[in-house]
C-alpha cells in the first residue's frame, strides 16, 4: 500500500525530528514569553518529564506498530524517536540540577542517594546513556548486531524505572490517573512483545 512507502521517504526522518522538537520549541518560547504560569521552574521540570514518558511510549510502540501495520519502514524512524526521548530526559535532568539544586554537586549526589524518587529517575537516565551513546551505525558494527540489540533492551528497564519515578512523585498526593495511563500503555506494549517473542518464527 502507498502510505507505507511514506516511512521510506527521505523526508520522513527530518519531518519526524521537527515534530518531536515542537514541544521543546514551545517550552523555550513559553519560557521567554512568561507563559509557564507562576512557577516556570516547576512547569519546565514537569513538562520535560511528561515528554520523556511520552517519548518512551512512542519508541516502544514502533516495533508493535511495524508488525501490526506490516510497515517495516517504521524501523528507520526508531532512532530519531529514541534520541529525541533521551534529549527530553537530559533537559529534565538539567531542570532538576539547575533550577532545583543550583548545580550544587554535593547536594545533588546526596539527594540522589537519599531519595528513592530521585534515585529512580536518575537511574532511568543512566540506563539511557549507553543507548544514546551507541545510536549510530558504526556502533552497531563495532558491537555486532546481536550484542547491540541486547544492550538496547535496557530501554525496557529505563521505561519501568521512569514510570516508577512518576508513580513515586505522585504517590504523596494519591494522584495516579496519569501514572496509570503511562503504565497501561507501556505495560500493554510489553505484553504484546512477550507474546510476539514467543511466536514461532
Amino acid at each position, binding site marked *: 500500500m502507498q502510505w507505507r512507502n511514506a516511512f521510506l521517504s527521505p523526508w520522513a526522518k527530518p519531518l519526524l525530528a521537527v515534530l518531536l522538537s515542537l514541544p521543546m520549541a514551545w517550552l523555550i518560547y513559553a*519560557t521567554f514569553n512568561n507563559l509557564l*504560569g*507562576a*512557577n*516556570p*521552574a*516547576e512547569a*519546565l521540570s514537569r513538562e520535560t518529564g511528561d515528554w520523556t514518558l511520552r517519548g518512551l511510549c512512542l519508541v516502544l510502540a514502533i516495533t508493535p506498530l511495524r508488525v501490526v501495520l506490516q510497515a517495516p519502514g517504521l524501523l528507520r524512524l526508531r532512532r530519531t524517536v529514541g534520541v529525541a526521548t533521551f534529549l527530553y530526559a537530559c533537559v529534565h535532568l538539567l531542570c532538576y540540577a*539547575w*533550577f*532545583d539544586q*543550583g548545580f550544587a554537586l554535593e*547536594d545533588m549526589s546526596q*539527594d540522589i542517594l*537519599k*531519595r528513592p*524518587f*530521585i534515585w529512580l529517575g536518575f537511574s532511568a537516565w543512566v540506563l539511557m546513556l549507553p543507548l544514546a551513546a551507541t545510536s549510530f551505525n558504526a556502533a552497531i558494527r563495532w558491537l555486532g548486531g546481536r550484542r547491540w540489540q541486547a544492550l538496547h533492551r535496557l530501554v525496557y528497564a529505563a521505561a519501568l524505572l521512569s514510570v516508577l519515578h512518576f508513580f*513515586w*512523585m505522585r*504517590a*504523596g*498526593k*494519591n*494522584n495516579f490517573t496519569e501514572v496509570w495511563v503511562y503504565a497501561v500503555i507501556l505495560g500493554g506494549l510489553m505484553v504484546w512483545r512477550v507474546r510476539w517473542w514467543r511466536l514461532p518464527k
Partner: protein
Amino acid sequence: MLIKTFADGFDHPTSSDITPAHVYQNRRQWLQQAGLMGLAAAGLDAQAQTARPGELAPLQAKPSPLAGAMATDTLTPYKDATTYNNFYEFGTDKLDPVRNVKNFLVSPWSVEIEGLVKKPGRINLEDLLKVSAMEERIYRMRCVEGWSLVMPWVGYSLSELIKRVEPLGSAKYVEFVTLADPKTMPYVGSRVLSWPYVEGLRMDEAMHPLTLLTFGLYGEVLPKQNGAPVRLNVPWKYGFKNAKSIVKIRFTDKQPATAWNKAAAQEYGFYSNVNPNVDHPRWSQATERRIGEDGLLTKKRKTLMFNGYEAQVGQLYAGMDLTKNF
C-alpha cells in the same frame, strides 16, 4: 494678688528635665515639624492597607499591631496569588481552582461551632465578620512542595472567636471541617484525598494570636479559589494546614485525623511546622522558591525555622522532638 517668685522657668530638680536651649529656641519650628509628621502618619494610616486590585468587594482593615504579623517581604503579585493555588476540591493542577470555581457558592454561608464548647451553634458569615476588628496581616506562606508566597490577608485572630464560644477545659484540639459539595466542587469524590478536607490544631496553636481566621486578601473579600468566604492562616506551618472554605469548627479532646496525614502519614505529619531540617521523604525542605519574585535561574532561598516565626511560636514546641513530631 500677684505672688512674685524667683522661679523663672529654669529652676528644675534634675538637670535632665531642662529643655536644651537649641530645642527651646526652635520650639515653633519643632511644633510645625511634629504637626507635619502627625499629618503624614495619618495619611499613611489611611493608605496603609494594601492597594486593592478592584476585582471583588472591599474588606477594610487596619494594619495589624501584632508582633510578626506584618512581614516586610515583597508581596506576591495578585495574579500569581490567585492563579497558583492548591485547592483539591477543584482539581490537582495549580491552575484548576481558578478555572473550576465558577459554580462554587460562597453566600449564604455559616460556620457550625460544635464539640467541647459552652456555646455551640451556627454562626452566619455576617455575624462571624463582626466578632472582632479586621486586621491586615502580611504573612509568608510556605508550601510543603517547596515554594512560598507573601500574602496580605484580612481577618482577626482565631483566638477572638474561640474566647467567645468558651471551650471546655477538656478541649485539647480544634478541628476544622471544610465544605465538600460534589455539585459545586468538581473534584470532591476524587480519590486523591478523603472528603471533606479536615485540618486541625492543638488548642495552644489555635489560641496563638498569629493564627488568623481569614476573610479577605489584598483588601477585598477572599477570591473563591483562595478559600472563600472564610479560611485559616497559620503562617509557621506548611500551607496545607490552612483549611479553606470552613463550615465547621469542632473542639475535641483527641488529635484530629487531618486530610493529608490520613492520605500519607509518612509524608505529612499532624504538626507540619515549617522546618528546614526535617526533609520531606521525596525532597529537601532546606530551600524554597518565592513565587512571582525569584526568577527561573535565581538560586532558591533558605527556608527559615517555623517559616521565620520562631520568635513568636518557638515556645509552643519547647522540649518536643520535631523530627518525630513533624
